[in-house]
């Protein structure tokens, strides 16, 4: 015989459709987003890693100030067991957009044609496929490059430019003002060689697999390069000493191994990191949902306590009861999960893929079934849901049948009524008792509101944060322009102040490597307005914050070109937000780095330095460009953040609705009785809805410090270690105000539904069920 209790399921579903619909919708929403994301992520990752291998991504590249002799390159290649491939490029800046142009190669960094074809004629160019979306370009369009008109022949994905980082020190890629173009060799040669950067890509003869192997292999290249450079420069020096004119020392202006190259790795790391983070997010949300479901089931047990007691007394086992009361919530959950996965693997995957495509230069992505993603979004959440619900149900149903019959199911001894002063108005005493009586609902609600609040804040915080970053960069700028020179050169402008600069790296265990600018500052500087103590260094505030440095600490920085560590004693912080930086006296800088006492390599200036030789200027950093990275960062985030915010709001509404509904249902008899006594629905709402409102609004305010702590923790333990560069932790007060307003605004809709529910409770409810 089939259990006749099973006949309850459909009727129960019909009578409490709202509850099961909310559970269903909640899980559909979460699972579709997460599975869509993971599926897209897995497909993109497959394409990404496949392309790196198949299209022979470089193992590194290096640039020189002048073209080195072939013998030098040959010697380095032999010593380091690598093959060099010429990979010169030039850059063309037009309307603030920089196009870096290479030639098409079939040996290294082979382009994958996404649309159109590779260039065949000298006046043709192909662009990375992000240019098509970012600037509305299409095949056949003609673009101006250094006075030439070039026709776009196609769009490609390059393995060495998955993310468009113009410079490896940039905090974020910049698809809007930076792009890559490829031309035929003949076409490339038609351009002026004056702007060409002498660049070589290399690949190891023996493939390096692990990080350590890659580091060692890169180290080998660097050592070989150092040896050859020293030898070559010694020879140049000797020739110069012998009186030969016009000689220039050979310098490496860029050296970047693949494992450090953000343009190659950022997308992959982003995908891996996002995948882990979003899976964790799913598990947290499911755990919260499982507790919400458990609370609703406990309410059902309370409502049906005497029936349960009778059934248990008649011989129904605890297992039968547990199974019976978990069927509907679990079915809603499992069906929600199935529907969520279907949406996730179809529409949502396409949507997520489009977001990835808007961020990274991807080639052709093949859609495939991903078992791991499916397990992550189905098996683990289901286990979480079942374990939490069964554990709570078993714990609740451990009570003996007699206790159910007596409706003593709280598990604890009968508590005395809490004493409330008669001075407190009656309505407030009533509300306080409602809150305490429904504590489990309200505690779950508070946890959920905090979680939803954190998601809303996450969706809201980045735009104001990046505006703040931009403002801080402008406010703490040292000078409007920073000129970086290839060789020292006197500037005639009066406001120009010399400085020396070099770039070192952090080497802190557990953190991603950061590039740190070490500045040598002249005595009585007009630009650095703090005295730098002898033998010590001022450290930029971002550096101090990110690495939790304090005065007196020693910062150890690494120079990969000389394989040396340099220690700096922190004398205090200096407000400078444009990059991680260390400021020392220029004479100490020169002695530390083996420079001549009068060495310098740049100028601070409030005006453009026209007197300098253009070809001797290595780089000009202006404050607008430096602060502009915040805009780039926001553009990269914006597509994601809008949906995140609304996801938080929907989660908030569904959860508050479900739990508030439970409070009303649990008190249906009391509400009915108050109606009999003559209270109007409005007055009853004033008791029950106001109680829930107090909890919701209280939770929203409580969420502010909790979310603040949570976000701070995420920044410190996750973001700061995973990201190179510095993003200050600051959440605008407006974000919290918006979170509270969004919460209250959406709660008003829930409260209206609650009032409707109160109106629907009949007076007969109290008479019918009173026992």
């Amino acid at each position: 015989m089939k259990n006749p209790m099973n006949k309850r399921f459909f009727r129960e579903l019909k009578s409490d459709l709202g509850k099961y619909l909310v559970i269903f919708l909640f899980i559909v929403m979460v699972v579709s987003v997460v599975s869509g994301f993971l599926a897209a992520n897995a497909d993109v990752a497959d394409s990404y890693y496949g392309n790196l291998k198949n299209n022979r991504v470089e193992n590194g590249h290096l640039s020189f100030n002048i073209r080195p002799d072939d013998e030098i390159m040959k010697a380095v290649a032999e010593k380091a067991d690598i093959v060099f491939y010429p990979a010169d490029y030039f850059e063309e800046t037009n309307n603030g957009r920089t196009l870096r142009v290479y030639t098409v190669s079939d040996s290294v960094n082979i382009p994958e044609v996404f649309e159109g074809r590779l260039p065949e004629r000298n006046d043709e160019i192909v662009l990375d496929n992000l240019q098509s979306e970012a600037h509305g370009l299409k095949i056949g369009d003609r673009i101006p490059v250094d006075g030439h008109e070039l026709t776009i022949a196609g769009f490609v994905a390059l393995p060495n430019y998955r993310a468009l980082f113009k410079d490896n020190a940039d905090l974020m890629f910049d698809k809007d003002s930076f792009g890559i173009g490829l031309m035929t060799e003949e076409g490339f040669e038609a351009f002026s060689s004056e702007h060409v950067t002498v660049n070589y890509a290399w690949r190891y003869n023996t493939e390096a697999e692990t990080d350590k192997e890659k580091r060692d292999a890169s180290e080998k290249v660097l050592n070989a390069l150092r040896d050859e450079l020293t030898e070559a420069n010694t020879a140049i020096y000797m020739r110069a000493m012998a009186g030969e004119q016009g000689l220039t020392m050979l310098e490496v202006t860029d050296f970047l191994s693949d494992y450090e190259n953000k343009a190659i790795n950022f997308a992959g790391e982003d995908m891996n990191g996002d995948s882990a983070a979003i899976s964790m997010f799913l598990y947290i949300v499911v755990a919260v949902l499982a507790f919400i479901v458990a609370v609703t089931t406990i309410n059902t047990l309370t409502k049906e306590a005497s029936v349960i007691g009778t059934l248990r007394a008649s011989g129904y086992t605890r297992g039968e009861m547990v199974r019976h009361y978990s069927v509907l919530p679990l079915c809603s959950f499992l069906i929600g999960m199935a529907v969520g996965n279907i949406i996730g693997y179809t529409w949502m995957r396409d949507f997520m893929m489009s977001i990835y495509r808007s961020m990274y230069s991807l080639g052709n992505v093949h859609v495939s079934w991903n078992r791991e993603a499916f397990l992550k979004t189905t098996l683990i959440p289901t286990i979480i849901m079942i374990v939490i619900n069964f554990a709570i149900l078993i714990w609740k149903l451990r009570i003996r049948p007699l206790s159910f019959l007596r409706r003593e199911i709280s598990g604890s001894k009968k508590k005395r009524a809490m004493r409330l002063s008669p001075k407190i108005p009656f309505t407030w005493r009533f509300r306080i008792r409602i809150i305490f009586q429904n504590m489990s609902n309200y505690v779950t609600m508070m946890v959920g509101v905090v979680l939803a609040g954190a998601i809303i804040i996450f969706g809201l915080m980045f735009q104001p944060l990046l505006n703040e970053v931009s403002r801080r960069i402008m406010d703490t700028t040292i000078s409007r322009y920073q000129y970086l020179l290839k060789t020292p050169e006197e500037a005639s402008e009066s406001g120009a102040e010399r400085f020396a600069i070099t770039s070192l790296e952090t080497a802190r265990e557990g953190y991603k490597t950061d590039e740190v600018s070490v500045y040598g500052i002249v005595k009585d500087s007009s630009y650095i307005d703090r005295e730098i103590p002898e033998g010590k260094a001022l450290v930029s505030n971002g550096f101090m914050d990110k690495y939790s440095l304090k005065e007196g600490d020693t910062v150890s920085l690494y120079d990969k070109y000389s394989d040396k560590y340099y220690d700096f004693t922190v004398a205090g912080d200096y407000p400078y937000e444009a990059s991680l930086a260390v400021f020392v006296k220029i004479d100490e800088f020169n002695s530390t780095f083996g420079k001549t006492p009068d060495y310098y390599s740049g100028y601070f200036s409030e005006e453009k330095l026209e007197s300098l030789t253009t070809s001797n200027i290595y780089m000009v950093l202006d404050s607008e460009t430096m602060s502009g990275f915040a805009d780039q960062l926001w553009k990269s985030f914006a597509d994601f953040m809008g949906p995140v915010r609304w996801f938080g709001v929907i989660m908030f509404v569904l959860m508050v609705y479900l739990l508030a509904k439970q409070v009303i249902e649990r008190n249906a008899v009391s509400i009915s009785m108050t109606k009999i006594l003559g209270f109007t629905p409005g007055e009853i709402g004033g008791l029950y809805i106001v109680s829930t409102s107090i909890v919701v609004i209280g939770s929203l305010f409580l969420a502010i410090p909790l979310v603040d702590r949570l976000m701070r923790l995420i920044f410190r333990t996750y973001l700061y270690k995973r990201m190179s560069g510095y993003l200050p932790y600051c959440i605008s007060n407006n974000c919290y105000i918006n979170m509270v307003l969004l919460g209250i605004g959406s709660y008003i809709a829930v409260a209206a539904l609650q009032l409707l529910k109160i109106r629907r409770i009949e007076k007969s409810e109290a008479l019918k069920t009173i026992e």
Partner: protein
Amino acid sequence: MSFVEIKNVKKHYGEGEARTAVLTGVDLSIEKGELCVLLGPSGSGKSTLLNIIGGIDDADEGYVMIDNEKTADMNEKRLTQYRRNHLGYVFQLYNLIPNLTVRENIEVGAYLSKKPLEVDSLLKTLGLYEHRNKLPNQLSGGQQQRTAIGRAVIKNPDILLCDEPTGALDYNTSKEILTLLERINSEYGNTIIMVTHNDALKHMADRVVKLRDGRVHSNYLNEKRMPVSEIEW
């Protein structure tokens, strides 16, 4: 050995100053097929004794033995199986499942038994056949209690435990229910132990047990049971 043997059963609630002795040493034997009425004023321990017999409450001391099996020796799982196979419960409050029909509520009891009675036949015996497709909220109190009795009886239990089954009913409906119990007892031969504070009901019993202050005050067999229809109160 009697079918139900109760030896020196003691039970208290609360501790310290709040300690209340409910049963202070109850000895009682009930034979198979007997209709036993437990009488006594409020607080005399009738319901507590019934709950201990039914295995949903524990005795502090003493034991209950049914058909040579001590309930105190059974663990929770075994006790549940025991109730499932041998006992039927009827409470003052009907405790029906609100979203199951009359028939389905009775089937809930039938599901527990390997050899349940025939549902339609029992519905007719209970006078509920015409109401079989109604939900509990469409029934009168008497009809609801008859459904509850049906749910207990359908599995043809050895012992039917009834705790104030007419406590919430009016005179005529109470008579109806008691007549039904009387009929079930004679038709199916179940042992019925019924708790009531209505002294008049002693006439319908084979055995009358009066409890006072947690002890058996009197325990006797009626020479002849009076039909419920003839009892007035």
